[in-house]
């Protein structure tokens, strides 16, 4: 078995980060080489990934299962390649570093099985850190860009709320009072 870990600080509150990562299809969109993600249910999805290694690009189908949704701090997952004897697991751990900063740590493990397991693990060893780093980096960029866009949008808001906004806010408050 081989393992890779990557930590990164995202310039956004932990709640915002969680709002982003709680949707598994977003994970797939950020994963390097992922071309397609079919969400089967809340826990299971099937990803089609193009993995590039050493001049070879290979399309692999991967079944991904979220073993534990424990947001906003933790997600545990497992996966299995459909055509190769390769399985794996991993975790996403988030913690508040500052009110507007979240540290995330992504761990990924790969395990080959059968007589060619050593080969699969040898090939995966240099790939895995790249994948973990690529995923974390893209996640950071996506969320921070989203946060920047939100900030930009907020700063562009007129100091005096418009009647439409006031009405919408009143409706939201009323709805919450009535239905919790």
């Amino acid at each position, binding site marked *: 078995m081989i393992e890779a870990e990557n930590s990164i600080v995202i310039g956004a509150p932990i709640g915002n980060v969680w709002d982003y990562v709680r949707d598994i299809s977003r994970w797939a969109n950020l994963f390097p080489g992922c071309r397609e993600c079919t969400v089967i249910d809340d826990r299971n999805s099937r990803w089609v990934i193009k993995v590039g290694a050493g*001049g*070879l690009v*290979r399309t692999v189908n991967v079944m991904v299962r979220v073993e534990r949704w424990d947001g906003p701090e933790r997600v545990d997952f497992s996966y299995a390649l459909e055509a190769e004897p390769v399985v794996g697991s991993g975790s996403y751990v988030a913690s508040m570093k500052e009110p507007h900063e979240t540290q995330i740590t992504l761990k990924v493990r790969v395990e080959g099985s059968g*007589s*060619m397991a*050593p*080969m699969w*693990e040898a090939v995966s*060893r240099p790939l895995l850190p790249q994948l973990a780093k690529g995923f974390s980096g893209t996640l950071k960029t996506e969320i921070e860009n989203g946060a920047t866009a939100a900030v930009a949008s907020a700063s562009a808001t007129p100091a005096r709320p418009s009647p439409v906004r006031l009405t919408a806010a009143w409706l939201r408050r009323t709805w919450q009072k009535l239905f919790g």
Partner: protein
Amino acid sequence: MIRNLPAKWDLEADVVAVGSGGGGLAAAITAHDHGASALVLERSDQVGGVTAYSMGEVWIPGNHLEAALGIEDSPESGFAYIKRLSMGYGDDLAILNQMVHGPVALRFFEERIGLKMCVVRDLPDYYYPHVEASLAEGRCLEALPFPAQTLGDWQSRTRLSPHVPYGMTHEDIFHNGGMANMMKWDYSVMAERLAKDERCAGPGLAAYFVKGVLDRGIAMHTGVDVQELVVDGGRVVGLRASVDGRDLFVRANRGVVIAVSSYERNPGYAKTLGHQLDPVSMVMPTIDGAHLRLAGQVGARIARVPDVSMLGFHVPGEEQEDEVALWRGALPFMGLPHTIVVNRAGKRFANEAFYRSVYFGLGAIDGATQTHPNYPCWAIFDSQAREKYPFGSVMPGEELPEAMGVTAHSIAELAARIGVDAHGLADTVARFNDYSARGEDPEFARGTFPWGALMCGDPLQQPNANLGPLLEAPFHAVRLHQMAGGGIAATGIMADHHCRAIGWDDEPIEGLYVAGNSVARLDNGALMQSGITNARGMTHGYLAGRHAAGHPSELLQEERLRLGLRERA
């Protein structure tokens, strides 16, 4: 007389190498070290060319590394070997030129760029021991692992190979059961090399030359698609290239060296110049005959030698760059035990463990029916082969993907499903099984070429590395497709002994050089031998670089006089 000079030049060097495989890089390095400035232009976005796609073997008779091991050999012996096997389709002086300069070029690059090579122990010449002057080992060299992190920014821009296990040397592979026995390899070595990006085989060999170029400050430009030569009267003085749709004029004060491999990605060229009908290819999409278009513009002469098509297959889901389907060569798998190759009649037609035999058989034409009796063809194997051996990237024990082949519970069912004569196939399998029990193949002599036993067989299989019966269901069939030569082509541009392109008047075209697979194979004739191609690229680059820099080699004349050969055959 052509005169197409531009109003102004965008770049300038004494020697401009077009193509960044071994030939182009060797030319640039040699020119630089003989006092000329140089630059390298590459059409794709990665350097290393077909050299980086190869197994990295370099075949040089009479090299000093075999001498250091006490192996007796000489360029003269290499000349005798090639001349005999070229069947008269080669040119004596061209053969001698390669034999004489191969060892010299090797030493030059060892000393100048730190190229580190070793003898691949126990790897014989193709035709050993059947042909005089063949050797059991010594001529085939490979690069020692190259630390690719030293390439800096060019690390990721120096090509790797989807075809070879570049984390392993030949020695690593041979000492652990050979190509067939992947289950016995020591993957801890591979893991460490891949983690540190230490490159073996073709990617390693190419990387040494890329490093040599970088160390000299020779500029390499990628994404440069050369469109035409710039000619001033009878002399090539530069070229026009296209970069992102814009023209780039590059002046070459002393010469342009075209080293862009062959034409196999151009179906029209493959058909008319190589007699290959819609071949698939294992090389990159840019190998489409640019050398012919460029040199043809100034009347360069082409020549053709007898050549073969190879066989290949596609593993579903595998691509190379630009989302082009990846085709793998069938050579290492056809001659494995429990495996045969048959035609529509269900008959074997060649020694599957010696690709020269299979591929010449493949091209045969039945004059009575005007058909190719041996194409299409299929690799047929049983579950024993599947359990023990890889087939391309389908690892031992893995199921054969449905889209790749057919699996059946009997030979009869298999024949029916692939449209092969069932009686013919049953008869062939029965006879092959009998041969396997006896350990000899009286029809096609499988297992009698030590090279084929090592590279296309299972060295652990007794008594014959290339024989084993097809007995155990399920049985499998993979349709094999005609495949071009992996950069090695029947036709190329004729060159003189300094690698100057020559015209139809047999005179050199001033300012134009060719190297590697772009050069007509008159130094091989009808022969191919693993490692010749990389040796040619390195040697041609050396010769072209020296001549263009004003320091031509005179060794051939000395050797010609010593051997009493005529100046031109």
